[in-house]
């Protein structure tokens, strides 16, 4: 069997065109129909109108947030699958998502979400940081990757249990509903502020992960060989996991848990990059951005009243799609 990757310029041109198209469609969609041309004119003239407010203060931040979160989940999924050399890995596996979610839930639980807009994402980020610190404390000097996964699974379970506890003792049905809706994952009703708080962490996280790209390629031949190629495997692993923590922690902090993007996107893109873990990072990032934007447009089109949550649709579509991918690719991945 022969494989041939699509040459990078072609791949990225196609992805970029798709991305622009999806972004443009995302900006035209919303509960209110507005005259986009007028919004743009007003914005250029520096006039504040309903149209320009809706376009630049509501739709654009929302689309950008969906895009950044999709990119983060794609990059993080590809990075973890490369690190663990396991196509079933996803950002949730090392406990970061649930750690971040728990941090945010605690903010909700104590009713702090209304005190300051920054407390919710801050709580999420602290949760992610605490989760990853505990994992590294648990793993300690042990060098095996299995211990790392098991510690992640354990932290995930503890995070889930604490979230359940918070729901159990939630003050009112309203508070409980607030937490549940947040956990389902959404980018609706977010502001530019959420963008500002998440973006730096995402950029740093992406940078750290991309820095590990060459290491992920070397890891294709195993840890021992990677070491002989001059990599300090433990240091690189730390950089990669901290990078994933920074960007996924930021993503979960502003949008809740959005599943399956991190799992499915790397699968989808792998054949297009000849299975190369390093090239997969960027390709998965761009594709993740596109897919989450599409999902967010779909969410807005499908639900006229009482919006469907973004995390619900990614899971609804993602899970069967993932099954389909496994059935299709079981011959190449043994």
């Amino acid at each position, binding site marked *: *069997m*022969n*494989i*041939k990757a699509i040459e990078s310029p072609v791949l990225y041109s196609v992805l970029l065109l798709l991305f622009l198209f999806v972004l443009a469609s995302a900006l035209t969609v919303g509960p209110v129909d507005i005259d986009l041309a007028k919004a743009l004119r007003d914005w250029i003239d520096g006039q504040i109108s309903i149209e320009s407010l809706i376009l630049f203060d509501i739709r654009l931040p929302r689309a950008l947030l969906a895009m950044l979160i999709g990119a983060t989940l794609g990059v993080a999924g590809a990075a973890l699958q490369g690190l663990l*050399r396991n196509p079933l890995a996803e950002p949730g596996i090392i406990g970061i998502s649930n750690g971040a979610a728990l941090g945010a839930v605690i903010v909700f639980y104590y009713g702090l979400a209304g005190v300051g807009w920054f407390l919710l994402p801050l709580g999420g980020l602290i949760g992610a940081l605490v989760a990853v610190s505990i994992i590294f404390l648990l793993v300690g000097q042990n060098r095996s990757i299995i211990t790392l996964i098991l510690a992640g699974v354990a932290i995930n379970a503890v995070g889930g249990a604490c979230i359940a506890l918070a729901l159990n003792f939630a003050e009112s049905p309203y508070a409980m509903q607030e937490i549940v809706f947040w956990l389902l994952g959404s980018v609706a009703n977010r502001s530019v502020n959420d963008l500002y708080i998440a973006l730096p962490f995402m950029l740093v996280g992406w940078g750290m992960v991309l*820095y590990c*790209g*060459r290491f992920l*390629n*070397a*890891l*294709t*031949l*195993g840890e*021992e*060989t990677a*070491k*002989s*190629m*001059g*990599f*300090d495997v433990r240091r690189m692993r730390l950089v990669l996991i901290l990078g994933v923590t920074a960007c996924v922690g930021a993503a979960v902090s502003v949008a809740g848990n959005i599943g399956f993007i991190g799992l499915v996107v790397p699968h989808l893109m*792998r054949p297009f990059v*000849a*299975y*190369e*873990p390093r090239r997969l990072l960027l390709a998965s990032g761009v594709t993740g951005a596109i897919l989450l934007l599409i999902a967010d447009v779909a969410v807005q089109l499908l639900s006229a009243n009482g919006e469907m949550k973004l995390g619900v649709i990614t899971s609804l579509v993602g899970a069967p799609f993932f099954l389909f991918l496994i059935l299709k690719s079981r011959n*190449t*991945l*043994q």
Partner: protein
Amino acid sequence: MSLLSGQGIDYSIETIRILEAIDIEVECGEMVGLIGPNGAGKSSLLRLLTGVEACTRGDIQFDGQRLADLAAVSRAQRMGYLVQGAMAHWPFSVEKVVELGRIPYQKWWQQASSEDLQKVEAAMARTETLAYRNRIVTTLSGGEQTLVMLARIFATDPDLIFADEPVAALDPYHQLHVMEIIRNHARGQRAAIVVLHDLSLAARFCDRLYLLNHGKLHCSGSVNEVMTRENIAEVYGVDSQIECNEKGVTVTSLSRIGEHHP
């Protein structure tokens, strides 16, 4: 000239002694064989010599410099390590696997340069793997995969090659092919250290042998000095027949010696 030398190498994992007081020397142009029964510490010694693991005590020098002081990048450029049962975890094409050998020459943001691709080409030619360059490496036979992994090492263009049981589980044709390729590398300013279980292949291809037993060096020297009936009986616990003729040395294990072997 000595390319690699180790004096008084001790290695322990927690309290378990793996290697004790090993002295080893590899000259330029030499192919050195590490032999010994299972668990003798051959692979551990190889890992210490490649710098992948640090020894508990002792001194390892590579080309006149302490191995521990050598920058990871130059270590990676000058030494190639073929791990036991090397395999690719993703369905890479053969060409892509060989290209991985150029990683020590690339910065983290760089892609393969035209010089890199030339080296990849040359490495595939040298190992006769050009014919299946576009095939997926995981679908190849064991022998072909070993050749591809060797090509990956040649793409790095190292001075010293370490190979951990490169011919275990290969058919006789591929065994000879792989051994010949490594032998041809170990000439001039270059050298190779190979862990082997096949004593006949070790005797035929290596210039010198180090015979390990229970983490200690039983003996070392030329093939004739090491490959004796007494040594093999003592270390492996088998009675053997050693034939030397103009075509090379053949070692045949005949029978186990009583309760000798632990």
